[in-house]
Each structure stands twice: as structure tokens, then as C-alpha cells.
């Protein structure tokens, strides 16, 4: 077996090793271990994507057992894209964190533990993206959840702990629901490999309704983890109470990882219509999320809450793909390409936006949006970052958000379900309303006082770079669409063991 074929395993093992190393290493070394791992991981992710583009999707049998007994990793196009997204944003978060968590600051909360937890989260995210096994999804979900809760509560103050606890309970609820679902699914099919399950389920057979209920529960659990309205209740507090690099990672990556698992299960594993009404319900909830999240973002007065609610709204877009399932291959490739594009571009922009928001908060010494007047003059780079990320949130060209909105709208109209396109348009307008409300404050005068730039602020070009990448991401759409077509989600390159 060539080295290239081992990439999925390496992508899980490398951050796991780094996680252990940072735990052992001292304060002076841990950040460099993490940084090195981030670089290596990015290189591995690029290699994975390149290989997927080159040879197509493949399965990696962990330990050589092979499905159905063993656990297989699946390296297909969408997975490669998500791993790459995790790597790029992860690298940026790592660099940002090296400045954010001062080495010499005795009060820096969670100093040291951040790196371990962060590397561990990276491990589990990569695992979540690559796994092809329904139960392994559960394990990865819980690993992501535990590390995410730890990171969210990292500050250790009352607010962070309270948010962390809520996050934890939401995770527990989701974990148990998922486990119950998997149990039911297994009891009906005696199989856990998603690719095999698709074949089994498509043939139908005994215990069909048991499998359907199992899938429904798994989906419900993932909906909770992905914070789709009305299951978003844990997100705003958890994302806004966390330290800035963690907020960025949580908002940009964690919900994307769980979403990807959902995508695998609903589109890749379940035949269209197997759970009647499921897909439409997900679409409706997505549309509700777009509207409700945007309205709440419009009304928030604290900057991080504002950004968090914008995430709640943006997540909604990702669910518009489900009601379109079952349409022709060309329409589905538009729709799937659209949501993958949205996930990637939102990941880039949201991480940039959170970093900029956190920096603004630190410099103005407050998280009150109305006291950030004149930021356009006094902190032009951060304001520009907010503005450019905002363009992505609104889905205006040339951001990737535009590409995703266009593809999804086209796909919706092609299937005759034009109302999803209307929801997308409305969401863009509401996003403009909440983004420009904030930008108007930043552009208004006279300026509020702000603190001089410290080490973290010296990295203000980093979030700008992320926002810029998102701003021109529509030009990556051909690549994203190509990756979307490689693998079982579109059933064009189904990889069966």
C-alpha cells in the first residue's frame, strides 16, 4: 500500500500525537509542537485533496480488518474538502492562538491545556470527516464534544463554566440520542458501515421502520450538535464565552464537522425518501434558522453574541440541500456543491470575523457594539475584516457565499421548489441588515477611545487574510464542485468495500 493511501490514518494520528506531546511538553515548547503539527496537518490535507482529485475516492481499512467487522475510513471528495478546511482554518487559529495566549502571562486562562485540547479536537474533527462507519461517527462526535466543551469553558469564569455546562448537557443529550439511534439501526440491519447500509436500506427488508426510526434519532442528535434552530440553544453562549481563537474554531469548524456527518448519513447512507418527510423538515428548519438567527443577530448588542447568532443563521443555509435530495444528478451536484462551498467559505469568513470581533472587543475594552463608534478610522484593518467577512455572510459576489446561494437557488428552482430560493434571498437581505448595522456604527463618528494594539492585534492581518480568502472563494467553486462529485454522496463514485 502506497504512502498516499495511508493519508487518512496519518491525518488522525498526527494531531493525536501532537495532543499527547503538548500535554507532556512544557509551556515553552507546547505552542511550537502545535504549530508544527498544524503545518504538517495542512500539508497532509493538501496531499489528501490532491490524491482524491487524482485517483478518486478510496477506503482505508483501519488495522486491516475491513468492514463490516472493522472500521473503514473513507477518503472521498467532500471529506477531503472538509479536512482541508479544518486544516487551513486550524492553522490560522493556531497562529492566532500563539499570540493570543501569552507565554509569560501567568493569568492566561487554561494556559497549556489549550494546546492539548485543541490538538485533540483537531484529531476528532479529522476522524469525524473521514470515518465511514456509523458508530465511529458517534465516537468522533463525543471526542469533538468533550474537547469543545473543555475549550469553551477554558476561561474558567462563571459565564464560561455556565456556557460550558449547557454545552456539555446538550452534548450528552445528543450523544445518548445518537447512540439509541445507532442501536436501533444496528438491530434492524446488523450493519454499521454507511456504504453497505445504503445498499441494504435501498433493498428494503425486515425491520425497515426500526432502521428508519434509528436514522431519525441519529439525525436529531446531529441536528442538536449542528445547532440547527430550534436546537441552537447552546451555541450563542458557548461560542461567545470562549476565548477568541476557540470561538473561531467552534463556529467555523465544529458545527461544520457535525454537519458533515449529517450530510453523510442523510445523503450518503439513507436512500431518498427512506424516512418520509425528514428531508423537507430539515429544509424547513433551515429556512427558519436563516430567518430567526438573522433577526436575533440584528438585535444583539454584544459583539460576540452577534457573531454567534450570525452562525446560527448561516447554518440554516446548509440544510437547504436536503429537500432537494432525489433530484437528478446535475441538480444535486449543483446543490451539494453549493452547500460544500457555503460550509468552506463560511468557515473561512466566520473564523476571520470572530478573530476580528475578539480583537475589537479587547481593544475597546467592552463587548458593547454601540461603544465601538469610529472603529473604521481607529482600527481600519479590523473594520475591513468585519466588512469583508460580512460580504460573505450576505452571500454577495464575489464571495463563496454568493456561489453557494446561486447554486442552491438554481437547484431549488430546477426542482420546482422555488420557495427555498426565496428563503435564501431573504436570508441574504437579513444578513445585510445585521452586518451593516454593525458597520454603520463603526463608520460613524466621533470615535470611541480604544487601547493600543497588543500582541494579538499585531496579528490583525491574519483575520483579514481569512476574510479575503472567503471574499474571493467563488473562484474556488470549480474545485469544490469537482470534489463534491467524487464519492458516495452523489453516488457517482460510490466506494463500496
Amino acid at each position: 500500500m502506497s504512502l498516499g493511501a495511508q493519508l487518512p490514518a496519518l491525518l488522525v494520528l498526527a494531531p493525536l500525537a501532537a495532543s499527547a506531546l503538548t500535554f507532556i511538553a512544557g509551556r515553552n515548547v507546547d505552542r511550537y509542537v502545535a504549530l508544527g503539527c498544524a503545518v504538517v496537518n495542512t500539508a497532509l490535507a493538501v496531499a489528501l485533496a490532491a490524491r482524491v482529485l487524482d485517483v478518486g475516492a478510496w477506503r482505508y481499512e483501519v488495522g486491516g480488518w475491513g468492514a463490516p467487522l472493522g472500521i473503514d475510513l473513507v477518503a472521498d471528495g467532500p471529506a477531503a474538502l472538509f479536512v482541508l478546511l479544518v486544516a487551513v482554518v486550524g492553522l490560522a487559529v493556531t497562529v492566532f492562538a500563539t499570540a493570543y495566549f501569552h507565554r509569560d502571562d501567568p493569568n492566561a486562562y487554561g494556559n497549556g491545556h489549550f494546546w492539548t485540547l485543541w490538538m485533540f479536537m483537531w484529531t476528532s474533527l479529522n476522524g469525524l470527516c473521514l470515518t465511514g462507519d456509523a458508530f465511529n461517527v458517534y465516537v468522533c462526535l463525543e471526542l469533538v464534544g468533550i474537547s469543545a466543551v473543555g475549550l469553551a469553558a477554558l476561561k474558567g469564569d462563571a459565564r464560561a463554566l455556565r456556557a460550558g455546562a449547557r454545552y456539555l448537557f446538550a452534548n450528552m443529550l445528543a450523544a445518548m440520542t445518537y447512540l439509541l439511534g445507532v442501536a436501533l439501526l444496528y438491530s434492524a440491519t446488523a450493519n454499521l458501515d454507511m456504504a453497505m447500509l445504503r445498499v441494504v436500506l435501498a433493498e428494503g427488508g425486515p425491520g425497515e421502520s426500526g432502521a428508519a426510526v434509528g436514522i431519525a434519532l441519529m439525525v436529531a442528535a446531529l441536528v442538536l450538535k449542528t445547532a440547527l434552530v430550534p436546537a441552537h440553544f447552546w451555541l450563542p453562549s458557548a461560542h461567545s464565552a470562549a476565548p477568541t481563537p476557540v470561538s473561531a474554531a467552534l463556529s467555523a469548524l465544529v458545527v461544520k464537522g457535525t454537519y458533515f456527518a449529517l450530510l453523510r448519513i442523510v445523503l450518503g447512507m439513507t436512500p431518498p425518501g427512506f424516512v418520509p418527510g425528514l428531508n423537507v423538515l430539515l429544509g424547513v428548519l433551515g429556512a427558519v434558522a436563516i430567518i430567526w438567527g438573522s433577526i436575533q443577530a440584528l438585535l444583539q448588542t454584544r459583539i460576540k453574541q452577534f457573531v454567534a447568532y450570525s452562525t446560527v443563521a448561516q447554518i440554516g443555509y446548509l440544510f437547504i440541500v436536503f429537500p432537494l435530495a432525489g433530484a437528478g444528478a446535475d441538480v444535486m451536484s449543483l446543490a451539494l456543491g453549493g452547500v460544500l462551498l457555503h460550509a468552506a467559505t463560511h468557515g473561512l469568513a466566520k473564523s476571520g470575523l470572530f478573530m476580528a470581533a475578539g480583537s475589537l472587543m479587547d481593544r475597546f475594552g467592552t463587548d458593547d457594539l454601540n461603544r465601538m463608534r469610529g472603529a473604521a478610522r481607529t482600527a481600519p484593518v479590523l473594520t475591513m475584516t468585519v466588512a469583508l467577512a460580512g460580504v460573505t455572510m450576505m452571500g454577495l459576489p464575489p464571495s463563496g457565499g454568493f456561489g453557494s446561494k446561486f447554486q442552491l437557488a438554481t437547484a431549488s428552482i430546477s426542482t420546482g421548489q422555488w420557495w427555498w430560493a426565496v428563503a435564501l434571498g431573504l436570508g441574504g437581505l437579513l444578513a445585510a441588515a445585521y452586518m451593516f448595522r454593525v458597520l454603520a456604527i463603526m463608520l460613524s463618528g466621533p470615535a470611541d477611545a480604544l487601547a493600543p494594539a497588543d500582541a494579538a492585534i499585531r496579528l490583525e492581518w491574519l483575520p483579514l487574510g481569512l476574510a479575503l480568502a472567503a471574499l474571493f472563494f467563488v473562484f474556488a467553486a470549480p474545485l469544490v464542485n469537482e470534489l463534491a462529485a467524487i464519492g458516495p454522496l452523489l453516488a457517482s463514485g460510490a466506494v463500496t468495500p
Partner: protein
Amino acid sequence: MMIWLPVLLPAIAALSTFLLGERRPRARNTLNLIAAAASVGTVVVLVIRAYGGEVAVGAIPMMSDLDLGVHSDLTGLLFSTVATVLWMITLVYAIGYMEHAADQARFFGFFALCIAAANGVALATDPVSLFVFYEILTLTTYPLVVHSGTPEALAAGRKYLLYALTGGTLLLLGNAWLYALAGPTPFTPGGALAGVETHTTALRAIFFLMAAGFGVKAAIMPLHGWLPGAMVAPAPVSSLLHAVAVVKAGVFGIIRLINELYGPALASSLGVAQVLAAFAAASIIVASVIALRQDDLKKRLAYSTVAQLSYITLGVALCSPLAAAGALAHLAHHAFMKITMFFTAGSLAETLHVKKLSEMGGVARRMPVTMGSFAVAAFALAGIPPLAGFASKWLLGSGSVEAGASWALIVYVAAGALAMGYMVPILLAAMRPGDHGAPEGVESDPRMLWPIVIVAAMSIVLGLTAGLPGSPVHWALTAVAPAFGGVTP
């Protein structure tokens, strides 16, 4: 590669302006002027080649089978030429106007970005590419509208976005629907929808979605609400953006929509062009009447802009070669005429702090050259021969008759009379006695005066040379001919 320069050069200027910040104003100004001159040079080369039949095309892959494309056809180049030439002139004016203002880097940066976007709109090869640049234009204009940061400016900015982004959303939905229906539809003179004409209901709906999207910037009533308010922006912004780039992007979109997406034949057989024409005609008259009553100079000019833009819209919607050519020519002519007026309004506000007609007494004696230039532009706008406005209005009127729509001719001439009605009182107000505490004949800063004189002179030159090759009229006649089966009117 060269085809991208009209978009890239201003964008590069913008980027360098942002990077320079407030540190080196002289370097920034020089750099912007060089970029503008280079853009003008590029466009001129492209025009010469296009006249010779050589159309350059550039495309970047964007989504599945959609590219972000630009091409140097004559129609687009006309708009692009106007935008870049006036950008250069306006830069000189703005450098004088903004000399002591705050946040200059932001101002000049977004200013250049707007031009980049406007050039993109002009040269875009298909509706989706056009939409991309159109939305960029919306966004880059916003910081300029709210530049002063006052509550009025922020309120105007909010209104602008409400209108523009709603329009943009409709345009997006129209584009998505069109793509779902017909796949990629690159602009083709005479229409790009061969094969899907039978979907009449969908095509009508798409047309209205797109026309509403463009109509916001083209300020077709009742979508014009943002324009008068947006006049709180600094004078150079009102001048270039609200008389030239932004609003013209809207009407230009309508020109592309009818002439090169639907094609005049399909647009009129679907009955959609007629509806648009009715809206445009109503806008012309209503906006002109409202303009009669404005005391605020810039608002009066804004309503005049609303009316004049609908001249263009109506011209295209008539679906006749002469009227379409007149519309395209008027796009260029109106830019020169209206920019003169906004420059003047800016000079009055900046030098004399005069913003209303009722305060204008004595202005003509204090600034005879400025007001003389204004008078030329005003008469040109009202269509007095042999000035530029007459030439395009003549074409528009002839086109109305050609299309068998004599009512449109009446609308045009009535609007001309109303234009005199709202322009002449400005001149009269300036000629009333009044004192501005300075010796007579002292004009504003030469960097603000000369641009005014030059653009006013252009109103005369463009009118006198209207029959010559290379003039906007001749250019427009050549450019729209293919949309009507290649017959040069």
C-alpha cells in the same frame, strides 16, 4: 489580459491607497491619477480595436459552467470609457475638494473600487458576471455615501442599502431562475434565449425580477427613493457615482437585458418592454415635476437624474434601433452634463457654503465661470441644440416615432420643457443680487474649477461632433445595430 486592465487598474489603485493610508497624500494622489490615466489609455486602445472588429474576451472559471467574463464590445466600452474618463477628471476635482477632509484614504480607495466595479459591469459578458460586478458596486458605494459618519449620512446609507440590496436579491433570483431554465446565457446582440422562448410565463417573471433589480440603481419610480437621500455624500461622490457610475450601471443593465439577453424582438413580443416603458415614462414626468419644487440644489439635481435615467430606460424599452442608440448615447451625454452640475453644486457648497437655491443670490457674479459652465450643462440637459443633450434626445425622439410610439416622443419633449423648468430657476437664482463677502470673479480652487470647465466644454463638443465617427452618437448607432439584425440605422 489587457481586457482585465480596466477592472484591475482601479482595483490596484484602491489597494495601494488602502495600504498607504493617511500617510502620504501626495503619493496617493499621484498614484490614483496615474492609474486613471492608464485606465483611460487601456480603454482607448480597446475601443480602437473594437471599432476594428476585434473583441477581446477574458474569463475566469467561477461556478460549474459559469465564468466571470469580460469582453470589449462597443456597447460596454462606451460606458467604460465614460466611467474612466470621468474618473480621471473627478479625481482632480476630488483632490481639490477633499484637501482638508478626514479619512481620505478610505474615500479614494473605495472611489477607485467603484470604478473597477463599474468597468466590470460595463464589460461583463453574461448576466451572472454582470451581477457580480453590480453587487460589488453596491457595496463599494456604501462607505462613500456614509463618508461623513453623521446621522443623516448613516440614515441615507441605510436607505441606499435597503433599496440596492433588495434589488440585488431580486436580480440574483432572476439570474438563478434564468440559469435553471436556460443554462449559461452570454450576452448576444439580438437575444441569447433562443430555444426557451416558449416558457413565456417564466421569461416574463425573470424579466421583471431583473428589471426591478436594475431598476433600483436606474432609479425607475417607485424604486428611486434612495437617490435623493444619497446626496449627503461628498460632492465628488454625488458627481461620479450618482450621476455616472452607479446609476448608469442600472440603466446599462437594462440595456443589456433588453438588447442582448432577451433581444428587442422577444422583449416586445412578451409585452414586458412595454410595461417597462410605461414605468419609465411615468418616472420621467413625475420626477421632473418633483424636481421643480426642490429648493436644495443637490436634491433638484437628483430628481433631474431620476428623470434623465428614465429617458434611457424608455429609449431601450421602445425596442427600436434609433431609440436604443439614443439611449446609449444619452448614457454618455447625460454623464457629462450632470457631472458638470454636481461639480458646480460641490463648488458652491465647499467654497461659498451655498446649498439651496434660496441662498444662491450673487453666485453668478462671484463665480461667473463656474456658473457659466453650469448654464451650458443646464441648456444641454434641456436639449437645446447644438449641445450634447439635443443630439441624444433627437435620436430618442426619432426612435419613438420609428417604433410607432408617438406618445413617447411627447413624453420626451415634455420632459425637455420640464427640464428647462427646473434648470432655469437655478440660473435665475444665481443671477439674483446677493453678497458672498468676497470680490466678484473669485472662483474656487483651480483643481475644482478646471474640471468643471472641461466637462462643460464636453457638453458642447459632444453635441457639435455628434455626426462624426467616434462620437457617442455614432458609437451608439454602431453598437446597437447588431441587436437589430445588423442594420445600421
